[in-house]
């Protein structure tokens, strides 16, 4: 599978999961899809076969509300059955809206309250440093999440302890729950803030898979600094009417023109070699 194909499938599952469950955060799922796809497909050494290997890479979704993107990636990578994705949010389901590790192979930790996962990931990365383990720890953080003070506590710590096998990827979609970041608590100059905290910084297009792969591979050259990849993204990416519209932080794609319109747009941008799993099921 190519990462572009996985990213498409994450978006397709995200639409279906939030549609079925009337769940929130579709715009965040669409925004983070490329980051998640590249990590699971091309970068992180993690598979259903090596889950107990202490040298496996760790991926932590600190912006837990985009959990559907992780579930979709894991299901497509055979960590569990794709069919289970339909239970997202449902009574008795283990696929909670915010990502959960309980009973779900491949999820390292549960998150949901912002500013926690990145710090736990920092602890996991510290463990690699202490025990001289080769694994990398990847934490996917939201830009709105960077309002949390704990993120900056973590930023100081990771620099102090020279956690060069720790990579934070910020899904910088410029929006948070109620408004643009800039109108809430401005992060600018964002890259300079991380630089000032002593981090190795990449400022890239977070939907461009080549740029993501290059930055994630270049991060491995760092000998004494943690790396942050500021992945500039568009909230709602891939469905034009959801893009950069605050409405879609919480709204789910309703039956009718919203759901159909989203699918039409996704199908129009479908990479070669991908089969829509839901179309397939209907046949």
């Amino acid at each position, binding site marked *: 599978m190519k990462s572009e194909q996985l990213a498409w499938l994450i978006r397709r599952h995200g639409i279906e999961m939030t549609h079925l469950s009337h769940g929130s955060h579709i715009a965040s799922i669409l925004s983070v899809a490329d980051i998640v796809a590249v990590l699971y497909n091309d970068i992180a050494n993690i598979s259903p076969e090596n889950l107990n290997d202490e040298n496996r890479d760790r991926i932590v979704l600190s912006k837990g509300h985009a959990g559907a993107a992780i579930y979709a990636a894991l299901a497509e990578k055979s960590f569990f059955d794709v069919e289970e994705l339909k239970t997202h949010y449902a009574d008795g389901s283990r696929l909670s809206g915010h990502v959960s590790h309980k009973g779900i192979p491949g999820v390292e930790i549960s998150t*949901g309250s912002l500013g*926690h996962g990145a*710090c*736990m990931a*920092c*602890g996991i990365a510290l*463990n690699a440093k*202490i025990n001289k383990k080769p694994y990398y720890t990847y934490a996917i953080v939201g830009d709105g999440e960077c309002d949390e003070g704990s993120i900056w506590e*973590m930023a100081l710590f990771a620099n102090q302890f020279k956690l060069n096998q720790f990579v934070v990827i910020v899904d910088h979609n410029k929006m948070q729950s109620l408004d643009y970041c800039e109108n809430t608590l401005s992060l600018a100059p964002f890259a300079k803030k991380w630089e000032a905290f002593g981090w190795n910084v990449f400022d890239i297009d977070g939907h461009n898979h080549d740029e993501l792969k290059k930055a994630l591979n270049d991060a491995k050259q760092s000998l004494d600094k943690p790396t942050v990849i500021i992945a500039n993204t568009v909230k709602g990416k891939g469905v034009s009417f959801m893009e950069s519209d605050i409405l879609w932080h919480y709204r789910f794609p309703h039956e009718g023109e919203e759901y159909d319109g989203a699918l039409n747009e996704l199908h129009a941008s479908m990479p070669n070699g991908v089969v829509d799993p839901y179309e397939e099921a209907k046949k």
Partner: protein
Amino acid sequence: MRDTFVKTLLDIAKKDKNVYIVTGDLGFGVLKPFWDELPEQIINAGIAEQNMTSIAAGLAMQGKVVYTYSIGNFPTLRCIEQIRNDCAYHSANVKVVCVGGGFVYGSLGMSHHATEDLAIMRALPDVTVVAPGDLVEAAEATKAIYTTPGTCYLRLGRGGEKQIHNKIDDFKIGKAIKIKTGKNVAVFSTGAIFDEVDEACHELEKEGITPTVYTFPTVKPIDKDTIIECAKEHKAIITVEEHNLSGGFGSAVAEVLAEADDVKAKLVRVALDDRYSCIVGSQKYLRKQYGIDAQAVIAKVKENY
């Protein structure tokens, strides 16, 4: 008590290289023996308790046993959600250690009075809550939480606590320790305020008043059997804690009594009367000021004897 903790943990950590202390930039002098001997097993996370606690959870989930260390409310209330979500929910082997439970830092002011921590920590599922009453209990509790899987809270006094027990042969998490068998009234004490209870008992004995006395080094899980047994054999149970009335040790005992069959004992709680202290002073002074000292215990025992 804090020195006993550090000495005991140092012995454990020498044998187990997976044992770590993560301090929130506190423990000057106190942590020195550990720092000198095992510098590789101690981390200063800076004045950043949220990150400290999450880091500890992250380390613990990779197989380490991590003691977070700070004073007063900093290792608990400041980062309570990190303890809940990152430690307890993940069954992480994190041992939260507070030096200065109650009015230990009395003169430093309200910010440093740890007087709601037992209630708040006790409210969290999958957190064991331990408050040793003297130096021997502190050493035993330090060993016991090391072997107790998951997240634990160890509430310590500071220094200068007495050794009241000679030794404890069979220290168990969740088990109260009998100090003396008496009659009519049973006094239950948790934490370093055992000092006051001990002093009260000596005074009372001179007058021929001899209550039963237990210490409860574990607040959660609470020793239901001992509570119910005592409630059947005594007219009154008096709980003593250096903590607020709401939700603390006395409340834990009340919960057991409220649901028990065939118990008649009245419950009297010696605790802070649901208030913060704007008055400062030594621990001893504040205990007296707020009616949780030996004299208060003596009065309550006499009233109910």
